[in-house]
C-alpha cells in the first residue's frame, strides 16, 4: 500500500515583484526519497521552508504527514525533521550535548533524551566523537550530527535542504549512506540538490523545478529516457576509417548516424542496445579494423536537466 505523505497543490509565493513559487505541485509517497532538482533561485528552498511551516504561502494548499500545513502547523511540526542549508548544531556543545538539547526541546524526559542521543550517535557513526565539541568536527561529521538532530523523533518526513553542498567526496558519501538508511527504515525524505549525481543516486523520484514551477516529476531512469534512446558510439583509432565505421553503425542504427570529425567518432541511437553493440563489434572484427573505443552511451541526467532547463529559458525569452 502506498500512501502520500507529502502533497502540495498549486503552491504560490510572491516576494514583491517576483514569484518564488508559481503554481507548484509535488507529491511524495511514504518511505521514498523525492529530490527537488533545479538551478539556484528555482524555488527549492522556498518549497522546503513552506512545507516545514517556516514560511507562509499565498496560494494553494499542502499536506505533510496527513496534516494541513497552514491549519495544523503544530501537528506537522511533531512529524517532521528539518536540516537546513547551514548546519544548525551548536558548535560549542559536544555531539552528545547537542542531541540531548534537541531531545529536551522535543519534550523528551532527561533519561529518554540521553538514551535517544546514544542511539543516534551509534546510528550516525559518531560514537567515538560523542564527547568532543562539534566545532572540531569535519564537514561530513557536522552534517551527520545535524541529520541526527533532525531525527530525534524518527520523523515521518525529513526535509533536507542541500544536504551535501560544500562537503568533500567522503563527506557526501557519509551523508548519502545516512539518507539511504533512513528511507529504507520508512522515513519519507524530501531533499533539494543541484547535484545530478546525488539526485540520481538517492532519489526515487525527481522533480525538476525552475522559476517556481515543477517542470517534470519522474524517476531518474524515466528522466533519462525522456532524452531518447541509448547511443552506440565507435571512436576510430585512425580517422581514415571513419567512413567504414559510419557504414557499420548505420547498419544497426535506429535513427540518423552522426560523424564527429573532431572526436573521430561515429554514433547513432539504437533501440536494442546490446544486440546493436554485439553486431557492430562483430562487424568491426570481421573487417579487421582497429578502433580506439566502442560502447554504449546512456544519456546522463545532466543532459536531461540542461535540456529541460534550456526549454524553459527559451520560453522565458519569448
Amino acid at each position: 500500500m502506498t500512501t502520500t505523505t507529502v502533497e502540495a497543490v498549486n503552491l504560490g509565493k510572491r516576494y514583491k515583484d517576483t514569484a518564488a513559487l508559481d503554481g507548484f505541485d509535488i507529491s511524495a509517497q511514504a518511505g521514498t526519497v523525492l529530490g527537488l532538482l533545479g538551478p539556484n533561485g528555482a524555488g527549492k528552498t522556498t518549497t522546503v521552508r513552506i512545507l516545514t511551516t517556516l514560511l507562509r504561502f499565498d496560494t494553494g494548499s499542502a499536506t505533510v504527514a496527513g496534516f494541513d500545513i497552514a491549519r495544523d502547523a503544530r501537528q506537522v511540526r511533531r512529524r517532521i525533521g528539518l536540516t537546513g542549508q547551514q548546519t544548525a548544531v551548536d558548535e560549542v556543545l559536544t555531539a552528545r550535548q547537542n542531541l540531548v538539547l534537541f531531545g529536551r526541546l522535543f519534550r523528551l524526559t532527561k533519561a529518554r533524551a540521553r538514551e535517544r542521543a546514544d542511539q543516534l550517535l551509534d546510528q550516525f557513526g559518531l560514537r567515538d566523537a560523542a564527547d568532543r565539541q562539534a566545532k572540531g568536527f569535519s564537514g561530513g561529521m557536522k552534517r551527520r550530527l545535524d541529520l541526527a538532530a533532525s531525527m530525534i523523533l524518527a520523523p515521518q518526513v525529513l526535509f533536507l535542504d542541500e544536504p551535501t553542498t560544500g562537503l568533500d567526496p567522503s563527506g557526501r558519501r557519509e551523508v548519502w549512506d545516512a539518507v539511504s538508511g533512513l528511507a529504507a527504515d520508512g522515513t519519507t525524505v524530501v531533499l533539494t540538490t543541484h547535484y545530478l549525481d546525488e539526485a540520481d543516486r538517492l532519489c526515487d523520484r525527481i522533480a525538476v523545478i525552475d522559476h517556481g514551477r515543477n517542470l517534470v516529476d519522474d524517476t531518474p531512469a524515466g528522466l533519462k529516457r525522456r532524452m531518447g534512446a541509448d547511443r552506440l558510439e565507435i571512436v576510430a583509432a585512425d580517422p581514415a576509417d571513419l567512413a567504414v565505421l559510419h557504414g557499420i553503425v548505420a547498419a544497426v542504427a535506429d535513427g540518423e548516424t552522426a560523424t564527429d570529425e573532431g572526436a573521430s567518432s561515429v554514433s547513432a541511437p539504437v533501440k536494442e542496445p546490446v544486440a546493436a553493440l554485439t553486431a557492430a563489434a562483430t562487424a568491426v572484427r570481421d573487417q579487421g579494423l582497429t578502433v580506439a573505443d566502442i560502447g554504449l552511451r546512456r544519456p546522463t541526467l545532466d543532459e536531461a536537466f540542461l535540456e529541460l532547463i534550456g526549454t524553459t529559458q527559451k520560453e522565458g525569452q519569448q
Partner: protein
Amino acid sequence: MNTLAPLPDETLAGRLKWTLHDYRTIVGQEFTHLWRQPVNFLWALGFPIVMVLLFVYVFGSAMDVTGEGAGVDYVAYAMPGMFAMTMAFGFTNTAWAVAEAKEKGFVDRVRSMPMASSAVVVGRNIADTIHAAIDLFVLFLIALAIGWRSDGTFWETLGAFAILLWLRFALIWVGVWLGLMVKGVEQAGNLFAIAFPFGMVSSVFTPPELMPGWLGAIAAWNPVSATATAIRELFGNPVAAGNSWPEQHALMAALIWPVIITAIFLPLAVRRFRNLGR
C-alpha cells in the same frame, strides 16, 4: 517506529508548563556555553576593564567632575558610570547571539519544532540577564580592588545593582530586534557604532553640564545617564547632576526609561520574529 513529540494540554497551565520547560532548556544551553568557553566570557569583560584603567588612570587625573580639582574623587564618579556603560553595551552581545542563531539556521530548526518558538528569544533574554549579573559582579570586585567604595547601605547597594540589571533587561529587546534585523553576524559586529555614542554620550565619564549645550541635553536625557546618576545616589558617590528633569529625578528616570524601551522594542522584536515567516 515513529514517535511523536508530546503536546501540551490545551489549558493555560499546560501550555505554561511546556513554555517554561523550553525556556529552561535554552537557558541551560547558554550556561553550558559559559562553562565551556570561560575565555570568551573574560574577553567580553576585557572592554570595560580596559576602559576602567584608561579613564581612571590615564584621563582621570585631568578630570574635574566635582569642582574640587582635577582627579579628585574621579574613581568614585567613574565606577558607577562604568557599571552603567557595561549594561548599555550589553545589547550588542544579545544582537550578536541572535544574529548568529538566525544565520546558522538554529532559529529555523527551532521554529520547525513543536516547541514554544518564543523560547529562542525569551531564553536568550533570561540567559543574558544572568550573564549581565555575573559581569557586574566581576566589575564590582575590580572596582573594590582599585579603591572604589559604596557608601550606601546594603539594601541601597543591592538596589543600585537591581537598577543596572533593569536597564540591561530592557536593552535585551533592542538587541533581539537588531539581531533579527541585521543581515548576519558580520553586520551585528558593526552595531558597536551605535553602542559607542549611546554608552558614552552620557554622564558615564563626564557630567553633561561640562559638554556643549545641545550635546549636554542629549547626554542628560540619555537612559544610561539616568541609571548612572541614580546608582551614584544610591552608592553615595559624587553625583554632579545638572538641572534637567532626569538628572534631578534620576531614580525615577532610571525606573521609567527601561519601561519605555521595553514598551517600544518588545513589540518590535516580537513582530520581527513573527515576520520571519513572511
